[in-house]
């Protein structure tokens, strides 16, 4: 057992107030209330489909999801009215295709993940290799003038960065993945994603909320002392930081990153303290050496740090902490429906104590997210009423403002109005 039981006697320094008026740092974003329309409008949603989701790199998981040749996952890109198969080929390279038979359009894969030697359509038995080439057509001689070599599965672009797999629906995107991620790469370079991805927990839900309503709830700490009063507020707020102000943040052209304070004076509950002794947890681990974190994570190096968030446009976020990280995906389904997927990652548990610690950490995370889920559906339920047209945002909600601006830059709904 490690001898690092927190005592709850740490001292929180005063938050750095010199930079917590974030609107002042980013005057081009303005300070006016933002419109509600983008969160409820079908017209806006249709533009997001065409101008955002068809035109950017989208994360569909990690390389550990498909470790062996023939392993595949299916990304249901309902927002773009397609389904994409991501598969590891025979030589280890990763391919991605529209999940659609070249014959009459049946889905070639019906489950969400699996392993296969080839893809065989369950309609007429057309068969494709892992590289997408059409390899077999039953009763082939009855077709007239078929160009078999041109009837492979339709590819989409695929590339990886730091073990994260991204796809782009344009098979020849103008922008490479590396260029697309250039703003956030320096911050995350060197983070031990591979080591920390040995153990993965994943939940999914279809929530009755617009994807931006859902995502925005995770872009500010202002709600913590109220919405998470029962669960996590004590670990993320303190006497010196009662409203969960950000420790630092950087807004980029499309992406953004934030650092949040923890609470060095937090006394864990009995089971939290026990879990802390045996492994990493976002909620209970504070003030430890940060030597194993790259310079871009908690760049201030303040000890009263808890977690960073890297928001990768449009719908993916990575929350790196000390010894564990989590991700969110918000997949739009319609203007008021979203598939919300959360994954939380840990190193391989070597013994029962570490496994217990990981179990506690993920159960508490799940319960904290249950607090968020309710709010999202209540908001969506009334946003469409028209009772109000705009929402005011404060300095500490600047990520919501930034997200709105980046989306609108792509969509152009208000341009010229």
């Amino acid at each position, binding site marked *: 057992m490690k001898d690092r039981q927190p005592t709850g006697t740490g001292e929180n320094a005063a938050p750095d107030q010199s930079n917590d008026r974030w609107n002042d740092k980013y005057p081009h974003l303005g300070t006016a209330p933002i419109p509600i329309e983008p969160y409820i409008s079908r017209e806006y949603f249709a533009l997001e489909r065409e101008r955002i989701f068809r035109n950017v790199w989208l994360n569909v998981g990690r390389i550990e999801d498909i470790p062996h040749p023939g392993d595949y996952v299916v990304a249901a890109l309902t927002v773009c009215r397609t389904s994409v198969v991501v598969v590891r080929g025979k030589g280890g390279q990763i391919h991605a295709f529209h999940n659609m038979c070249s014959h009459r359009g049946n889905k070639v894969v019906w489950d969400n993940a699996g392993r296969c030697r080839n893809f065989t359509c369950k309609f007429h038995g057309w068969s494709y290799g892992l590289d997408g080439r059409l390899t077999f057509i039953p009763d082939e001689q009855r077709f007239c003038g078929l160009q078999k070599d041109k009837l492979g599965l339709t590819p989409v672009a695929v590339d990886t960065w730091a073990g994260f797999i991204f796809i782009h629906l344009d098979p020849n995107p103008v922008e490479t993945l590396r260029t697309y991620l250039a703003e956030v790469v320096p911050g995350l370079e060197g983070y031990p994603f591979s080591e920390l991805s040995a153990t993965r927990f994943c939940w999914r839900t279809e929530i009755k909320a617009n994807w931006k309503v859902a995502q925005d709830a995770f872009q500010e700490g202002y709600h913590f002392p109220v919405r998470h009063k029962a669960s996590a507020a004590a670990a993320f707020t303190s006497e010196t930081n009662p409203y969960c102000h950000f420790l630092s943040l950087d807004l980029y052209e499309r992406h953004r990153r934030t650092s949040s304070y923890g609470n060095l004076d937090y006394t864990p509950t009995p089971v939290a303290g026990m879990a802390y002794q045996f492994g990493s947890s976002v909620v209970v681990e504070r003030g430890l050496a940060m030597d194993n974190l790259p310079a871009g994570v908690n760049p201030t190096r303040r000890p009263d740090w808890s977690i960073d968030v890297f928001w990768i446009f449009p719908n993916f976020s990575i929350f790196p902490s000390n010894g564990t990280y989590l991700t969110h995906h918000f997949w739009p389904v319609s203007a008021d429906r979203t598939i919300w997927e959360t994954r939380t990652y840990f190193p391989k548990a070597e013994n029962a104590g570490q496994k217990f610690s990981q179990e506690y950490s993920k159960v508490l995370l799940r*319960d904290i997210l249950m607090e968020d889920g309710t709010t999202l559906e209540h908001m969506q339920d009334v946003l469409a009423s028209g009772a109000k047209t705009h929402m005011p945002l404060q300095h500490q909600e600047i990520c919501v403002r930034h997200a709105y601006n980046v989306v609108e830059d792509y969509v152009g709904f208000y341009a010229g109005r």
Partner: protein
Amino acid sequence: MPEARLPEQFRDLEQWIGWSLETEGERSDRRQASAMEDITAFYEAMLARMEEVLPYLEQFSLEELPDDAKRLFYLTLSLAEVAPAVEQFGQPSVVDGYDIKRFVASHR
């Protein structure tokens, strides 16, 4: 006497064997379906023994836990499951929470 299902030195936990469940879904279902009184009694009984339970379990590799130790291990995972009910919410479910049945785990 029914056959003992836990390692000898943890027989006092035998009455909680119903919490020895393999998956998060099963453990969560039991938490949601249990009275707070029962959850708290289980929590207190387990918490009191954890300082001995974890070192005992750590003598085995996770992949090679004997059956009785595995049942004990699953009890520790149920302690992790019920801890927020006792320590944070004071009720089995998250206060004003999202329907946990809709938050579907793809892990075990």
